């Protein structure tokens, strides 16, 4: 229809899958880490904070290379995952999701952390006096109040995951149907003279998807915000 071959459509499907899984799977950890960084002081807090930011600081290829070394089949973590759970990440779409998730993680955590820092701790104390355990305070008061930040963080992460290229291709290569995401396909098109049009079509699709997600998140975010402001 658009002059794109079936491989390109595979890439679209795969990118969606990878980005969604990366965002969803990293969300619980992202919330936990954001909360710990915003609220707790513990030994290693600064180390955790640094680790979270690393993927942002490092050139993506370096992150991809480190992932390869750690999570590849020969890597210590990769071997352990394979032997213990039978999970292989290298050259799999799951590895692409891991790479995208890690690259997007700092964005997700920062957004959620800011939201945690904005929650009025007096509301949490009030919940405590009403009999809510720490965990209940968290789930019934804190979490609903950070919802806008969680939405913002998730959409940032999703957008980043849709666009991630360097770490992904370095870690899981480009295997059509398995690890060839939209950015990999775009990159390939751009390497050859005359590939620009196909690349631009894919760019348009990618942008369309991400903007739809963005619009959805704005809409949900606005609804959540009005609820919290309380009209």
């Amino acid at each position: 229809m658009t002059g794109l071959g079936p491989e390109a459509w595979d890439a679209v499907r795969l990118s969606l899958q990878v980005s969604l899984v990366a965002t969803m799977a990293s969300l619980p950890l992202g919330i936990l880490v954001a909360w710990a960084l915003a609220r707790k002081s513990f030994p290693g807090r600064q180390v955790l904070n640094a680790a979270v930011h690393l993927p942002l600081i490092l050139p993506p290829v370096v992150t991809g290379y480190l992932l390869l070394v750690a999570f590849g089949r020969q890597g210590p973590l990769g071997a352990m995952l394979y032997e213990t759970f039978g999970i292989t990440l290298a050259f799999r779409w799951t590895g692409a999701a891991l790479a995208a998730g890690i690259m997007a993680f700092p964005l997700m955590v920062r957004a959620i952390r800011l939201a945690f820092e904005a929650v009025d701790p007096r509301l949490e104390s009030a919940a405590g006096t009403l009999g809510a355990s720490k965990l209940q305070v968290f789930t019934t008061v804190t979490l609903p109040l950070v919802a806008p930040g969680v939405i913002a963080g998730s959409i940032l992460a999703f957008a980043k995951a849709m666009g991630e290229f360097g770490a992904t291709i370095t870690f899981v290569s480009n295997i059509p149907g398995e690890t060839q995401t939209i950015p990999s396909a775009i990159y390939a098109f751009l390497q050859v003279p005359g590939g620009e049009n196909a690349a631009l079509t894919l760019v348009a699709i990618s942008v369309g998807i991400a903007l739809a997600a963005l619009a959805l998140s704005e809409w949900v975010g606005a609804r959540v915000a009005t609820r919290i402001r309380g009209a």
Partner: protein
Amino acid sequence: SEITVFAAASTGPALRQVAEAWEEETGNAATIAPAGSSVLARQIAQGAPADVFVSANVDWMDWLEERRLIVPGSRRVLMQNCLVLIAHGPAEIAPVSLTADYDVARHLAEGDRLAMALVDAVPAGIYGKQALTSLGQWEALASRVAQADNVRAALALVALGEAPVGIVYATDAAAEPRVHVLGTFPDSSHDPILYPGAVTAEAAAPAAAEDFLDYLSSDAGHAILESHGFGVPE
């Protein structure tokens, strides 16, 4: 005078060493800017301040030439390369010349991947696909290829043992101790691997640029290029 050389990334260090020798001899200065050939070609089309372009493949040089962005007549082949099949680990047997009888797939266990550069986009990948096709093995291997975004990344996959075998340039294989060469693909199995160079149409110092290319084609230049594993034109 000073020139800027837009060099295909894989040629960067060799060119830098040549540049140092050239600077010593002529008192000129050369800055080597390494990046992918496609990136560099497009940038030259957008008026990049490059005096010399060294491409890793012929297509992008053709593309510039069609657009009259290089000085006619300055184009020449600077160096050549060979394509090899490599495997992880130290050498066990001497390299062979690869023929249709050589079953590449036997190095791949269930789930293993053959590491190559992007087979439709990056020169090393394109040459590799041609070679496997002419050896009649592409059909069988196509679905088992892990395509890296550049040939160095393919090399890294084999070096780390993530892929047991891969297809890279001889120059890459020579410098990586964690891999060994299983065999060399015959020149006839793929288009010649040529690195063309030319003076750009908007070069600020065309004379020096021409001189640099000449130096690359001189014996002194050839010696340096060969020390990096490149072949040089007769």
